[in-house]
Structure formats: C-alpha cells, structure tokens
C-alpha cells in the first residue's frame, strides 16, 4: 500500500519534470527562433514512463476491486427481504415455549 503510494507520487513527479523540460525546450527554441514542432524524444519517453508508473499506482493503491456482475457469486440475490411490515404474530411458533430466561433486569 505504501509502496503503491510512493510509486504514484514518483510518477507524478516524473510527469511534472517532463512538463518543466518541455517549457525549457520551448524557451530554447524561442532563442534560436525555430518552430515548436513537438517535444524532444527524451520528454516523450519520460511522459510514457510517468504514465506507466501512475497507472500501476492507481490500480494497486485502492485495494481489491468489487465485482459488478449482478449474477456473480458474491452479488447474486439469495432472497428477497421478508415483509416485516406485514408480519403476523399468529403463527405456530406460539406453541413453543421459549428456553430463554426472559426477565428485564435493571
């Protein structure tokens, strides 16, 4: 968990560094009065590396993913809730004597 978090922070730092290098590169081009066609290869490689690290961190840090299938083994509906509002007390369970010591002690 901590490792994933650290890797995520590292990935974000790499991306920030790539952004800074692009800005520096643009400044350099302005001095040399050339067109800005695209960032240099090193910056591209850095961005891809940062992407990989951040994605890995994003998938490992939150923990176990839950299933979204409605018919998967965990999500399937086993029973509908018994209608508690319509519960009647007139059932055969009345004949059973309870074994609990039913006294309200204070």
């Amino acid at each position: 968990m901590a490792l994933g978090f650290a890797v995520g922070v590292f990935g974000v730092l790499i991306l920030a560094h790539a952004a800074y290098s692009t800005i520096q590169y643009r400044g350099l081009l302005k001095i040399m009065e050339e067109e800005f066609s695209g960032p240099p290869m090193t910056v591209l490689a850095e961005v891809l590396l940062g992407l990989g690290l951040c994605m890995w961190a994003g998938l490992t840090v939150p923990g176990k993913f839950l299933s979204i299938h409605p018919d998967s083994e965990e999500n399937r509906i086993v029973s509908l809730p018994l209608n508690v509002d319509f519960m009647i007390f007139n059932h055969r369970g009345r004949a059973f004597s309870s074994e609990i010591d039913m006294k309200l002690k204070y």
Partner: protein
Amino acid sequence: MVTKTEETELNRLEIQVDNGGGGAWEYLCLVRKLKVRRSDKVLKHGLSILNDPKKRSNLGPEEWTLYEQVAVAAMDCQCLDVAKDYIKVLQKRFPESKRVGRLEGMLLESKGSWAEAEKAYSSLLEENPFDQVVLKRRVAMAKAQGNMSGAIEWLNKYLETFMADHDAWRELAEIYVSLQMYKQAAYCYEELILSQPTLPLYHLAYAEVLYTLGGLENLQTAKKYYASTIDLTGGKNTRALFGICLCTSAIGQLTKGRNKEEKESPELHSLAATALEKIYKQRAPTKLPLLNSALKGLKI
C-alpha cells in the same frame, strides 16, 4: 434484497455470537438492515445487551432503536411480558410518540385482542390518515384473523394511495396466489416487474403463475419470462431451466394437431437440457440418471 456476501456475513456473525464471541451489536444492526426475521436470536442477544447496564450506556442514543427491535422480536417469540416492559420504557422516554403507539397496537395484536388493536390503530389514523405503517398493520391484522377478502380490500385501498410500494404489491400477489386467484396475482407481478425489472426472482414468480394458469398464450409468455430469468441470473437458476423444458413440452402437447410450420425450434429446449446436465454433473452427480430419465419423459 439479500446478496450472497451479505448472507455469508450474517451467518458468520450469527455463529460467532452464538458461540460466545463478541459482535452482538453488529449482528443486530445487520439483521435490522437486511430485514430478515430471526426473532429468537435477536431476542436472546438483544436481552443480553440490554440487561447489562454498561453495554447499554455504550450504545448511546441507539439503545432506543434496539429496544424497539427487541420488543418486536419478543412479540414474535410470544414473550409478551418482556415486550410490555420494553414498551413501557420507550413510552416513558418518548411520551407522545406515534412509533410507540404503533408498538402498543402490535402488542395488542400479538395478544389476540383484535378489537382493541383495531381501536388503537384507528385512533392513530385519525391523527394522521396517511400513516403507511399503520395502514399496513391493519392489513396484517385482517390476514392474521383469516379474513383474506378483508385483507385484500384494505391492501387495494392502500395501493390506490401508495402505488410505488413494492412490498405491498408482493404481499398482495402472495395473498392472491394463496387464494388461487392467479389472474390477479399475475397483474401484481407485472407491476413488480415494471418497477424493478432487474430482479430475476420477480420474473421467475411471474412465469410460474402464468404456467399455472395454462393455455397456449400464457405458456408462451411463461417461456419468455423463464428465458429472461436465465438471462438475468447468468444461467445458474435451475428452476428456470426446468421451467423452459416443461413449457416446451406443454406447448408441444397443446399444438400437436396443428401445422408443422408453426412449430418452434427445439434449440432452446436442448440448450436448457444441456445446461441442466452440466449443473447436475457439477453439484449432484448421483442424481444425474434421475434427471436424464425425467427429461426423456418430457415428450417433445
């Protein structure tokens, strides 16, 4: 809607609490959330919490909900003195409360004094004529007295006002099925499917009612709903698979004299039969020959 994970969690907590481990409060909260009816366990563990003054003060303001829950469980287990004591405690704390008034009505119901309970509920309804729970209790009382037509009348009046209450529709459907009024039960299940189309259990119940009604059109619709149940449960519902096989054979019997062009393709039936065999092989291999002979007996 109790899912499998929730059920396993509930069973685990139940075993843990029964064997003396802690966690009674979590168990009671889960029972309350899932709305299952385990009154004897609730009563036993609720009493153990509430009789211990230290645990009681740990609960804080939640203890009153626990009082209510254990009072209802006590009424279900017919321990009426415990219920009466708890209701008295609640009354002392919340003197003018409607909720406590409802509990008193339920206590009169469980004692069997129907007339007094009716009086209590009518007085509660005078103050608030649209109190859902009291209206539902009146239906339950009619059902408990065996007056099914009265229960149906009250429930229909309730549903005219509160059409979105699916528990009430389900209750009405079950009452109709118990009285063998299948057409009306089918109507109730249609309402349920309209409001919650992703619940496979409603599709299954509707298909079964249609199959019981019989007749070519109903059988064809029943087959469609069995198929939709299989679709929603990913093919794991054995009852729906059996339903398809039976529907196909019943339709075949009814259309025996008709043109062969109108005959439906037997693919669905053979698919269902294969799926059934696979499930039985996996889960109950000893019963496989029984299944095979039963499927062969269904003339297609």
